[in-house]
Each structure stands twice: as structure tokens, then as C-alpha cells.
């Protein structure tokens, strides 16, 4: 049984990593008060940008950063429409997704099936020797190891830095931030662009580490799952990790089941993550308190005279 479970858990970590990056990115954006439904499109574009950069420069690290930058760019676009132009946040996010998926499929055509230099798993010195835990957590590629640190940095940023408090205040009550001498719109831009960076990293992971080939539909709905997970996580990074790995596990399980060959039709198996997302939302709504969400989430900041 262990022979099945441990590799599954290891695959869970790998599979959950892009979701973790994306979830934390969306969480950051939402903590600033901006709802971003463009995650799916942003992850896609970032994946392509990362792939292309790695292919052209030969450096997967440059590709990784490029993915983040692509995410920042799309985030800035969403920010411009919502923050400066006061556009409806829900619709803007959807537009970003439509645009992002379109851009990805448009520019990705020549690359389908091609490989690019990516990240490969290696044994983390010493820690990978730990029985069981070493197998599960410390035999992955570098981006996974980085993803272990990101939630901690996230927590530290928001709870132990002044900038983090400023962003939080903006997401709760932009007028209070303004009255305190801060610039809520600038802070929102920061949240959207910073969050976009993390989302982009998640997308980059997909094309540089999760697989090394370019294919269509790489994001596979993970962007939407990330949005749901932010709610599930009650806007706290610790629970985001739990949620990301939960979905990572389901997706890994699904793949294994398919590979092993089952009687279940593949279509029904593929439904699993989406059904689970709905269940997760039901659970969160049941047990969550209204005070968890940033109070000003989804609203726009009206300009003053």
C-alpha cells in the first residue's frame, strides 16, 4: 500500500505547486481589494512566456522570471481597467481570461509538442534522506522548494511589514488608508501586480517543470480552482497550502487511475477536480465567517475632488 501512497503523495506536492503559486497570487490581489477572475488566462500566458523565454535563451530560470513578468503585465492591465477606469471587476477579469487564453493559443501554435529546457527534480541534500517525508517533499525540482518558502514570505509580508499592513488596510477600507496618508490606488496596483507575479510563476511552473513540452490547454482550469481556494483558505496562506495540495492530490490521483486503466470512463474521472471545487466552496461557506473576506473586495475606489 505504501508503494502506492508515497509516490502519490509526492506527485501531490508536485501537482499542487502551480496551484499554490496561483492561489497565493490571487490571495494577494484580493487582500488589496481587487477580485481577479483572470487567473486562468494569466497562468496560460505566463506559461507560454516562460516556455518561449526558456526556449530562446536556453535558461529555465529566465523563463521562470519571464512567466512572473507576464503575470505582472496582465495584472497591470486588469488593474488599469478596474482601478484607474473603475471598470466592473468581475467582467474585467473574465475579459482577461478570454484575452489570455486567446493570446496563448494564438502564439503557442508553432510550439506545440516542442520541448524547452526546464527544471528537473533532484534530491535535496540531507533532507531527502528522511524516511517517508524525504520521499514526499524533498525529491522535487527547485521551483517546488521555492514554493515551500513562498507561503511563509507571504505571511511575513502581510503580518510583519508596514507595506503589508497598508495593503491589508486598502483591502478592508480604502478610505481609511487614504485618511492615514496612504495612496490606496497605488497600493491596489501593487497588490494586483504583485499577485500577478505569483500567478505568473504558477503558470511558468506548468510549462517548465510540470511538463517540458508545450501543449494547448496547459492551465486546465487551475486558475479557477485558485480563485475558489482563496475563499477556502479564508484569505490566509497556511490554509492555501492545504487546499493546493488537496487539489494536487486529486489531480495526481486522477492521472494514476487513468494510467492504471480503470472501468470508469475518463470523462467522469476528469470531472473530479471541478466537482471537488464546488464541494470545497460549500464547505467554506458553511464554516466561514463573513468577516474573513477583505471588506472592500470587489468594490471600486471612487475618485475624490
Amino acid at each position, binding site marked *: 500500500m505504501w508503494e502506492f501512497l508515497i509516490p502519490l503523495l509526492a506527485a501531490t506536492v508536485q501537482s499542487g505547486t502551480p496551484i499554490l503559486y496561483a492561489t497565493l497570487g490571487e490571495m494577494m490581489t484580493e487582500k488589496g481589494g481587487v477580485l481577479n477572475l483572470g487567473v486562468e488566462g494569466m497562468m496560460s500566458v505566463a506559461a507560454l512566456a516562460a516556455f518561449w523565454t526558456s526556449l530562446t535563451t536556453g535558461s529555465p530560470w529566465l523563463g521562470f522570471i519571464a512567466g512572473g513578468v507576464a503575470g505582472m503585465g496582465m495584472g497591470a492591465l486588469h488593474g488599469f481597467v478596474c482601478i484607474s477606469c473603475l471598470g466592473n471587476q468581475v467582467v474585467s477579469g473574465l475579459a482577461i481570461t478570454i484575452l489570455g487564453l486567446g493570446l496563448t493559443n494564438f502564439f503557442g501554435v508553432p510550439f506545440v509538442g516542442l520541448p524547452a529546457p526546464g527544471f528537473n527534480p533532484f534530491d535535496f541534500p540531507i533532507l531527502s534522506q528522511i524516511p517517508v517525508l524525504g520521499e514526499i517533499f524533498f525529491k522535487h525540482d527547485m521551483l517546488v522548494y521555492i514554493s515551500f518558502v513562498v507561503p511563509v514570505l507571504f505571511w511575513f509580508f502581510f503580518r510583519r511589514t508596514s507595506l503589508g499592513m497598508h495593503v491589508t488596510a486598502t483591502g478592508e477600507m480604502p478610505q481609511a488608508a487614504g485618511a492615514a496618508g496612504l495612496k490606496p490606488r497605488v497600493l491596489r496596483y501593487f497588490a494586483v501586480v504583485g499577485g500577478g507575479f505569483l500567478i505568473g510563476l504558477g503558470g511558468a511552473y506548468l510549462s517548465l517543470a510540470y511538463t517540458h513540452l508545450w501543449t494547448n490547454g496547459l492551465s486546465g482550469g487551475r486558475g479557477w480552482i485558485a480563485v475558489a481556494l482563496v475563499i477556502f483558505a479564508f484569505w490566509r496562506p497556511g490554509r492555501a497550502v492545504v487546499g493546493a495540495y488537496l487539489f494536487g492530490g486529486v489531480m495526481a490521483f486522477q492521472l494514476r487511475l487513468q494510467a492504471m486503466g480503470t472501468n470508469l470512463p475518463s*470523462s467522469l474521472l476528469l470531472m473530479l477536480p471541478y466537482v471537488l471545487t464546488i464541494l470545497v466552496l460549500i464547505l467554506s461557506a458553511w464554516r466561514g465567517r463573513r468577516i474573513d473576506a477583505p471588506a472592500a473586495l470587489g468594490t471600486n475606489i471612487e475618485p475624490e475632488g
Partner: protein
Amino acid sequence: MFKIIKREEPWKWGALVILLGALLFSLAVSALLLVGQGKDVFEGLNILWQGSFGHLWALEGALLKAIPLFLCSLGVAVAFRMQIWNIGAEGQFALGAIGATWMALSFPDLPAVILMPLMFIMAFILGGTWALIPAILKLKLRVNEIISTLMLNYIAILLLDYLVFGVWKDPTSFGFPMTSEFSSNAIIHGIGGSKVHWGLLFCFVVGVGLWAFMRFTRLGYELQASGEGARVAKYAKIRYGMLVMFVMCLSGGFAGWAGCVETSAVLNRLQPSLMVGYGYTAIVVAWLARLEPLNIAFASFLLAALRVGVENLQLELQIPAAYGSILEGLILLSVLAGQFFLTYKLEPKRSQVK
């Protein structure tokens, strides 16, 4: 530098100006992409134009695509008016197609007079139910409808795949995933000799019906009033919960009808290629049309024509079909940005008097 001032009166022709501006802007930007692909911009634009409006067959094609788009958009608009973000038109469309197929495959020999209405009824029921699920989740469990409707999209498409690869697969199709062709009684035929089918008339009836409903009935009024929020609805003793469910049913039902029409008239069978993203484009259409039925007619024709034009680009210049998505996304973003000017205007800052 500029100062931002709130308008006291809404800008009369603003919506139209913004739409035109957005179109021009998006065409210009996406044309740049053509350059990137090594194609001539003007040739591309010409082909796009020809494909959208230049020929009779283009207009025909646009009408054909406008029909399902119109129905989906009506549904989306009706829900959006109540600030219920129904992103699930795509899935509701699929369920409608499934419902229609079910009837068509089960009763191929019934006379069209009976079979057709049966198909439409079942399409409405399945599409409506698919939308009702997230509605109930929202009302009873406060589940965010954006994500639940979206997840149901994915599930619906997989359901369609499942049926078409499995139980409903046409034994004579050599392994291609599709159902048998519908009997003639189950197919909506073209008007006269043209390819444009009677679905167009159906659209007209539904559109006018919805417009009249919104304008003249009590329920239509309550729907409109609830758009301002659940609190006001409660104050006015409007039964908000019932209204939400009614609206979502309607929304899903309309999308379901779109699926029924497409399956019956255009494809004549159920197959995965049915799903071309009408449900998502419908959101763009609904927003451009500011959620009003009359405008939706124009906007859906416009975006349908664009789709046909992009198909033409694909054919003539081998431009990937995703070009259409890029255009749609850009148009929606620029309209959103432009709508800033409906509520505000910029005035140059006057220098301070010392």
C-alpha cells in the same frame, strides 16, 4: 494635468461612442498581431471585413452564428441585471443540447409538430436546472455563483463527451464521437432555400417576449428593481430568493434553447464540436449591449460577424482561430475602460490663483 469630475447628467451617446472606439482600438491592436505573424495588416483587415460583412455568404454565416449567441446573451443579461454573475452559459448551452438530443434520439418518428416542442421543452428544463443548481447553492449556502457556474461548465462539457463517446455514440460513425444524425422531424430547416433557419424567427419571438416582459409585467419590474441589491428588494417586499431562482432558470433555459437550436439546425447531431464558446462570447455581448434586449440583437450580430470574419482569416491566411478570442477580450477590456467616461469626465486643472 487633469482633474476627474463626476458627470451630473449621463452622457447621451456615450455608450455608442465608446463601443465604436473600442472596436477600432481592438482591431488596430490585433492587427499588429498580424504583423507579428508576417502578414500584411491591410490584407488581413480586408479579409476580416469581407468575411464579416462583404458577401452574402458572410452575412448568412453571421446570422447563423448570431442566433445561438443571441439566445445565450439574453440569458446572461437577465441574470447580470440582478447582479448574479452567471458564467455558466456554456454549460447550460451544452445541457440544452443534451436535452434536445435526448428527445430527438428517443422519438425520431414523432411528427415534427410534437417532436420539436418536446426538444425545446427538454432543452429548457435541462439548461434551466443546470443554472438552478448554483442558484440554490448561492441562496442556501452562500456559495459564490461565479465559480460554481464555471465549474459546472467544465462538468457539462465532460458530460457531453461522456454521452457522445459512450451511450449515444453512433455505431456507424467509425469511432468518431458523435450521435447518429437526427431524423428530419428533429431538424430545424432553413427558411426558404437559404441556410438561415427558423431559429431566427424563434430568436425574434423570444427577444420581443423578454423585452415586453421586462417592460410591462410586475415580475419584470421586480427583476429590474432587484438589480440594485437584495437589501432594496427586501425593503420592497420582493421575494428575492424566488426571483433569483426564477431568473437563473430563465437564464439557463435560454442558453439551453441556444444549444437546442444549434444541435438541431446546424449540426443535426450531437458532437463535441458543438462547443465553440458561445457561452463565453455571450458575456461579452451582454456587457457591450448594457444588458438590454434590443442592443443584444445588434451586439450578437456584430460579434457573430466577427467570428465569421475570423474564420475567413483562418482560411485565407492561416491565422489561428484564437485570434477571435483576442479580439473579443480586447473589445471587452476597452469597453470597460471606456465606460469610465460615462460617469466621469476629465477637465484640465486650472492654475491656482495666488
